[in-house]
């Protein structure tokens, strides 16, 4: 079949195997949950079905390594897409395994929770693979809608519904701005395909300055919301605090990573010819995000809000890589993203295990954790030190490579700001560690153990953090191969 | 731009449109008054009484007398009723029905406008009067009116789905004569003229029996007619959203209801019974003279209207939860299955008799489902929790 302009369309549905598998799994999960009594399956069968589906999707996506095909000129399946598919699926698997008991205890709609989580992953995968503005926008909406609802599912907590409402309202406005910007981009570029917009922009006529600028401003505002960049970050602390902790973990991992995948696709593809127009916009955004994210985190007393602001600060570092976009910074960004995700998941899995035992989220509640559960304290400490950038852990290596590539891109002043912000961040990470190690536990001081799935999740993430910190070569080559299709 | 109307050439397009609209308005008002009288008489006969007999011969001037009475009534408005909403609601209910008459084909080549999107346009304007019902219910500052308005809106939205799907199912398989050189027939049209012309030999009643029944039921619900008239049920919410309206305003609602009935019957005649084309096409290839076509259409529309009155006289009212579960759990899945089968027949070029067979099977399923519901009725649900917001005050 051909499209309107006579281009041949490749309708090979196997290219979309992972997404189709995940949607089918989501439907199966819904059915299994609805007919649980008739089918005589226990509650833990539902996460098991989800993980099975995720593994199948993972295997299907590994089929397309080193290929470069597109589906109907809407979705590209290349190394970049495969990298992100694997990443998102892994994140979802870890989140499901580590938060298994939390969900059973505190989330009432079991089947809907898992199916929405799977659907959100589908949206994230399509965001990374889209090569058409409409598909990208739809994918953003798929991911966001599922997250709006997932944030509200901790029914016993009033903050949950409030967080979801704030997220929905602000997310809706941001989506509207994004769409308006995309319509300007379409008007200027004459097509919704990335390659054709790039061609139209690099021909360039001077009458296009104003609408292009306006479109860029709106797009950056809309995407800045999704990535929690300052000043579009106000939803993040509230959404992170109110959501069930597994969803907070998922938000901080997949939501950010998908947005950055999209940012890389857009700013290295259709918008690259207009780089003079948006470079200053994003560097302002990066500076604001780094500074304000880290400064406000200093005053937090709730671990979830602290981690929310810490992830805002990390977004600032990652935005630097977009400013100096090139294949070197791109691969550094992908490496930093992977390291950041592994680290964040380590911390969050630890926080989930802690919450399952004590039901408390304040930082002062962590007192004496080193004595009551030294393994958990170790995991959380490793994660926080890695976020701060201590050597031998993932954060140090990935940050180092990221900063180095930005410097070689010519924006040394950004890196200086980043280093200062990083030093500031060490303070609030140390706060938590201090509570764990330097104080006696209050109340019940008996030692307790994690559940088997808790050990599995936290252990895997701890190993990951250390591995990336010490021997990152396989990840580095993966990132290199992933970014290559964007810059050929 | 100019066009021709009634044999006068060179008339401005806007003037032409205006003339046609005015003709429609006039026609509609007269026919609606006749329908009101007709309903009272027919209902009376079903209930073994006489109906209006005094005013005029055989009571024919009853509607005129009613209209005069309503015009003379005082125009009341509750003190706390929101003025704008209260007064605007009748127009929002009334105008979309008129808009629907734009695409209805009365006889060959006679309608206000022939639109390629005829059916879609019809569906779209049918949806606007739902807002009118809610506004009428809320603007009356009356608890019962608000409940009635909400129920009317919920019912209207829910039954819009089977209505649209039934029209879609028919539009999908309509055979359109193609004007390309290959001469192969195209399928699928929303243009009512083409739909009617395609039924010259066999009406869609034969190919889509299930769809016809579902359209009938959904149309009953959209018209707020028994057995779906819980929003305006006199014994329950005393007239529903229209309880606070009097005189001319109330007559506008009443008029809108019968005009909607008229337009549904005309669409039904056009889409399912072949409009002005069947059985004319059976006997010869030329269309029949205008007056014969008009009689045909009147007869078919009259059949639909009679069936509506008949159902009103015979069937008890459904509860709101029964009504909702009927559409979402029975009608909608059946219509989805029907659309799927229509699609399969289109794509794989199966013989059209498949449509009839599956349609009849669907009718059987529907009858069995209703039968089962009648024999094992669901228990009445627990009383609803407190209404929130305005209704609680």
């Amino acid at each position: 079949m051909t499209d309107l302009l006579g281009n041949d369309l490749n309708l090979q549905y196997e290219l979309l195997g992972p997404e189709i598998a995940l949607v089918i799994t989501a439907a199966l999960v819904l059915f299994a949950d609805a007919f649980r009594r008739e089918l005589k399956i226990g509650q833990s069968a539902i996460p098991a079905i989800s993980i099975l589906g995720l593994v199948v999707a993972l295997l299907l996506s590994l089929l397309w390594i080193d290929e470069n095909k597109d589906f109907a000129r809407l979705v590209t399946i290349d190394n970049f897409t495969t990298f992100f598919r694997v990443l998102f699926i892994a994140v979802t698997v870890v989140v499901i395994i580590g938060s298994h008991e939390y969900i059973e205890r505190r989330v009432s709609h079991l089947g809907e929770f898992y199916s929405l989580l799977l659907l959100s992953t589908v949206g994230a995968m399509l965001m990374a693979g889209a090569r058409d503005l409409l598909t990208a926008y739809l994918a953003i909406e798929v991911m966001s809608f599922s997250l709006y609802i997932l944030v509200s599912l901790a029914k016993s907590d009033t903050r949950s519904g409030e967080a979801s409402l704030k997220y929905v309202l602000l997310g809706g406005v941001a989506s509207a701005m994004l769409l308006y910007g995309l319509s300007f981009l379409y008007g200027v570029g004459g097509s919704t395909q990335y390659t054709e917009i790039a061609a139209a922009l690099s021909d360039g006529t001077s009458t296009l300055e104003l609408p292009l600028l306006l479109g860029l401003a709106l797009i950056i505002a809309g995407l800045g919301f999704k990535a929690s960049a300052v000043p579009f970050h106000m939803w993040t602390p509230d959404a992170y605090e109110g959501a069930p902790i597994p969803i907070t973990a998922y938000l901080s991992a997949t939501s950010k990573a998908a947005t950055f995948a999209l940012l890389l696709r857009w700013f290295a593809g259709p918008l690259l010819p207009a780089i003079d127009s948006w470079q200053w916009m994003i560097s302002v955004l990066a500076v604001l995000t780094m500074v304000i994210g880290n400064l406000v985190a200093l005053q937090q007393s709730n671990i979830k809000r602290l981690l929310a602001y810490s992830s805002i600060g990390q977004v600032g570092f990652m935005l630097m890589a977009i400013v100096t976009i090139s294949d070197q910074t791109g691969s550094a960004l992908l490496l930093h993203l992977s390291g950041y995700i592994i680290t964040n998941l380590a911390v969050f899995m630890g926080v989930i295990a802690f919450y399952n035992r004590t039901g408390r989220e304040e930082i002062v509640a962590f007192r004496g954790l080193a004595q009551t559960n030294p393994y958990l304290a170790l995991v959380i400490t490793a994660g926080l030190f890695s976020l701060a950038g201590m050597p031998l852990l993932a954060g140090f290596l990935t940050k180092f490579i990221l900063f180095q590539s930005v410097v070689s891109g010519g924006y040394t002043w950004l890196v200086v700001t980043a280093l200062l912000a990083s030093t500031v961040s060490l303070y609030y990470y140390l706060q938590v560690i201090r509570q764990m190690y330097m104080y006696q536990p209050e109340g019940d001081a008996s030692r307790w153990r994690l559940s088997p799935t808790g050990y599995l999740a936290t252990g895997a993430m701890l190993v990951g953090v250390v591995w990336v910190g010490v021997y990152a070569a396989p990840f580095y080559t993966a990132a290199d191969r992933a970014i290559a299709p964007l810059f050929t | 731009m100019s066009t021709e109307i009634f044999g006068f050439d060179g008339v401005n397009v806007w003037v032409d449109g205006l003339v046609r609209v005015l003709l429609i308005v006039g026609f509609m008002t007269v026919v609606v008054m006749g329908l009101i009288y007709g309903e009272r008489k027919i209902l009376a006969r079903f209930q073994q009484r006489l109906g209006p007999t005094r005013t005029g011969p055989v009571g024919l001037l009853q509607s005129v007398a009613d209209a005069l009475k309503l015009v003379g009534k005082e125009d009341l408005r509750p003190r706390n009723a929101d003025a704008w909403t209260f007064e605007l609601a009748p127009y929002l209910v009334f105008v979309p029905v008129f808009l629907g008459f734009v695409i209805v084909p009365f006889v060959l080549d006679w309608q206000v406008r022939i639109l390629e999107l005829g059916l879609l346009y019809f569906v779209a304007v049918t949806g606007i009067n739902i807002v009118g019902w809610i506004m009428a219910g809320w603007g009356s500052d009356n608890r019962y009116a608000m409940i009635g308005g909400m129920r009317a809106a919920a019912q209207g939205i829910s039954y819009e789905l089977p209505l649209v799907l039934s029209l879609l199912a028919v539009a999908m398989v309509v055979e359109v004569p193609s004007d390309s050189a290959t001469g192969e027939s195209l399928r699928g049209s929303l243009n009512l003229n083409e739909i009617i012309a395609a039924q010259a030999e066999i009406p869609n009643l034969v190919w889509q029996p299930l769809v016809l029944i579902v359209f009938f039921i959904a149309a009953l619900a959209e018209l707020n007619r028994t057995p779906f008239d819980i929003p305006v049920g006199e014994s329950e919410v005393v007239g529903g959203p229209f309880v606070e309206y009097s005189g001319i305003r109330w007559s506008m609602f009443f008029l809108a209801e019968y005009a909607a009935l008229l337009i549904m019957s005309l669409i039904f005649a056009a889409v399912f019974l072949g409009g002005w084309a069947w059985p004319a096409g059976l006997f010869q290839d030329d269309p029949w003279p205008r007056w014969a076509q008009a009689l045909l259409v009147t007869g078919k529309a009259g059949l639909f209207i009679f069936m509506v009155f008949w159902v009103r006289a015979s069937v008890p009212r459904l509860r709101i939860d029964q009504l909702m579960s009927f559409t979402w759990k029975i009608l909608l899945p059946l219509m989805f299955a029907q659309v799927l089968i229509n699609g399969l027949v289109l794509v794989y070029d199966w013989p059209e008799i498949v449509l009839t067979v599956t349609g009849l099977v669907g009718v059987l399923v529907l009858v069995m489902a209703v039968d089962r519901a009648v024999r094992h009725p669901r228990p009445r649900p627990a009383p609803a929790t407190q209404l929130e917001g305005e209704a609680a005050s």
Partner: protein
Amino acid sequence: MDSVGVVIAFYVLSAITIVSAASIFLLRNLVHAIVLLVVVFLGMAGLFLTLSADFIAVAQILIYAGAISVLFVFAVMLTPLASRDNGNSLYAGPGLLLGGAIAAIVVVTAFDVEWNQLTGVALEQRSFTDTIEVIGNQLLGPHVLAFEVASVLLLFALLGAIVLVTDPNNEDGTTAEEEAGKDTAVGGSE
């Protein structure tokens, strides 16, 4: 260019749409604002018609005026009376300034650029006599992925709306808010 009738229609429809849209945020009564929103939707449908986008116009009426406005009305009517006041905002002044600035930018952009001179690859294919057929073919052909993704999205949005409101732990479907009684407010510790 276009005929006189279409130009007059454009100006009339634009005036109706803009005045209604401005009145939406100037009126105190929220229900009136919703009625004006319906008018804005209908005005937009008319504007689409002047651009010969017949399917989009009818779809606009069907979806926006027919369904979304009903949703809005339901939502507003189920809220307590106090929140139905489209009241004053402290930020009216700065808001108006900012809004004026944005409007000025957009207007200058709209007038400054010669939009009909821009031809991109897809804009070359411009003349359709029958938009609905082309749109249908596009949706179910080249853009089938978007169509399927949108349908999955709608299914889960429907699901999510139900999930947002019900709590299976409670028999009659009320939320657990009333049970918990926890009223820690979010956003207090900034």
